[in-house]
């Protein structure tokens, strides 16, 4: 055979494939048989990077605990992480990559609700379990629910109904809303409209702000004219930090009470103490008997281990990550199977205790985790010796009183098991 240019190129190509491609591919197949991979999609870049990092730390802690005990069904568990860039399209693409290339056994994540919805859709199409750890929009366990999708964090309905009544009682019924203009914000808005409808309150201003807004001034200058009893802040992450900081500079925090369905430690740490204020819904807190439950050793061990490993106390995000992966792996172990339908049946309905106050369960009808929420007042300076101790937890709201009833949920959510 004479070696002309074309055959040389063909040969060289085949040789390169043999040298790099195939041997690189073989160990992956071997690996897939040994370790059990779970795909984690989070917004590691952008306004939610902080919460995403903490959620991942929570996943890591559950992962370490399970691997220390020998893994699931004798297999070591591994997390494969992907950045969804707060983009539902990118999230869906990364979910497909995790399913097709990495051969993950289930998907978990994500801080951004819009991405949770897109990942949920991809997982549904592939018949794979997805547990939404931290995206709150009602839809995930409401109109867009699927048999394969579960949610750990509270729904927007739970957040608004846990906080709405007590905020109205404390401050009055004329509210000015600052709302993030995507799935999560719209769902919160709907929840509060329901609360105000029941008690005869009014929304005197509702500013839809794009995710990633840096300057809130043009929205804030409208507040004085609206004369609200209360400013409700629905934006989260860096947007929350920017918004509260600018509210303080405009002198609004001195004039109006502020509050909302959800506050997290991460964005509060980005604020100087004089901009930390208000009454908020809290999803979990590392330093309160009301949230952890008296004498809950598992919770206290979680707090101690997390603080030691990551150099700061865990936040609600750490809790979401931990509970999500822990429940997923428990279900796999109980079902003794990686078959999605069997895992789903193992997750739903079973009552369990974990790192928070009281028993909880993923509701069979909509796959929403039913666990309490808490109300807290901000302590701007923390407590002596602990700058993270920013919440004074005042009250507990049991899940059944704040989530839509099963009858209401069944009107919109059809799980549709195969």
């Amino acid at each position, binding site marked *: 055979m004479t070696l002309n240019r074309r055959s040389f190129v063909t040969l060289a190509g085949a040789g390169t494939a043999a040298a790099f491609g195939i041997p690189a591919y073989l160990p992956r197949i071997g690996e897939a048989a040994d370790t059990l991979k779970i795909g984690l999609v989070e917004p*590691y*870049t*952008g*306004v939610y*990077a*902080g919460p*995403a*990092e903490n959620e991942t730390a929570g996943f890591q802690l559950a992962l370490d605990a399970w691997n220390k005990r020998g893994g699931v069904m004798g297999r070591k568990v591994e997390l494969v992480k992907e950045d969804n860039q707060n983009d539902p399209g990118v999230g869906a693409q990364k979910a497909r990559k995790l399913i097709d290339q990495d051969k993950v056994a289930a998907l978990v994540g994500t801080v951004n609700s819009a991405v949770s919805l897109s990942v949920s859709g991809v997982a549904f199409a592939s018949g794979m379990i997805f547990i939404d750890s931290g995206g709150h929009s009602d839809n995930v366990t409401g109109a867009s629910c699927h048999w394969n999708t579960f949610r750990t964090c509270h729904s927007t309905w739970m957040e608004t109904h846990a906080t709405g009544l007590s905020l109205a009682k404390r401050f009055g019924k004329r509210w000015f809303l600052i709302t993030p*203009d995507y799935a999560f914000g719209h769902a919160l808005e709907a929840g509060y409209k329901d609360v105000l409808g029941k008690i005869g309150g009014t929304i005197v201003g*509702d*500013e*839809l*702000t*794009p995710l*990633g*807004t*840096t*300057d809130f*001034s*043009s*929205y804030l*200058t*409208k507040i*004085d*004219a609206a004369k609200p009893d209360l400013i409700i802040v629905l934006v989260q992450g*860096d947007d929350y*930090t*920017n918004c509260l*900081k*600018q509210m303080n*500079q*405009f*002198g609004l925090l001195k004039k109006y009470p502020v509050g909302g369905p959800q506050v997290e430690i*991460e*964005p509060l*740490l*980005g*604020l*100087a103490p*004089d*901009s930390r204020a208000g009454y908020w819904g809290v999803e979990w807190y590392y330093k309160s008997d009301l949230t952890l439950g008296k004498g809950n050793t598992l919770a206290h061990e979680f707090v101690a281990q997390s603080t030691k490993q990551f150099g700061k106390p865990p936040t609600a995000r750490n809790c979401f990550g931990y509970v999500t992966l822990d429940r997923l792996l428990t279900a796999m172990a109980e079902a003794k199977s990686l078959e999605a339908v069997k895992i789903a049946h193992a997750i739903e309905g079973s009552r369990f205790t974990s790192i928070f106050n009281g028993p909880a369960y993923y509701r069979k009808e909509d796959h929403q985790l039913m666990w309490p929420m808490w109300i807290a007042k901000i302590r701007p300076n923390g407590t002596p010796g602990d700058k993270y101790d920013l919440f004074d937890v005042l009250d507990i709201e049991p899940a059944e009183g704040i989530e839509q009833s099963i009858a209401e949920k069944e009107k919109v959510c059809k799980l549709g098991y195969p």
Partner: protein
Amino acid sequence: MIHDLAPQVFNGLVLGAFYAIVGIGLSLIMNLTGTINMAHGSFMTLAGYLAFTMVSRGTSFWFALIAAPLIAVVVGILVERTLVRPLYKREPFYSLLMTFGLSLMAEEIYRLIWGPNGVPFSPPPGLASAVSLGFMSFPKFRIFIVVVLVVAMAALALFLTRTRFGLRLRAAVQDSEMIAALGTNTQLLYAVNFGLGIFLAGIAGVLAAGMLGLSPTSGNALLMPAFVTVIIGGMGSLFGSIVGGLLIGMAISLTTLWIPAASEVSMYILMALVLMIRPRGLFGEEGIFG
């Protein structure tokens, strides 16, 4: 109506002044070398974080307001000499891609050093509160930003028109080959001009950190308004950047009054309108450089 309008107009003008400072820095660099500096926002963030680090170690805000941008200038000139300079002879596309890559890297580096969450950086105590203007109460710090814009513009105009170096800079914008042939070190001009643009970015970065917030993404979030500012005002015109900045500030603020959800898109609509009627931008041919 007037009752609602006055606060929005005033706030829009002040916001516009801020966009103008960012836009002018961008414009300076673009005018001389055709470099579309996608890393402009990253230099803003860098100066913001440097100022934050200085202030949290006890330095005064005023010192940090000058020192942090100067350090950013040193980094900027290093970047210009090593990475941007080799691309001057190529299409603008190359330096655009390079600086874009640089901005992505910078964001990750800031995340590694200062963490993924925002950090608290407040205006100095004297400027932290609001002042009553009669028709609204307004943050003193935002009024201070207008003062900075006026001072910076006056200094820049004097530098460009009254110094020999500024004269050469303007000549180089018109014909860099001729001025090189006449014996001027154009490479030095390029480096100083880049440094000047970064200095303005740095000042804007420290101001933004105090006014808006400071996180790894905060500078990049301001990059698009800055580009729109330059495009509306017209490339090559510093005066145009001021007008462009004020116009988009007003557009954002007034849109918020009626359709809050469209406030972000309003500046792009304005840009589209300007480009359709006058593709060079409003002051694309005249101005200080023209």
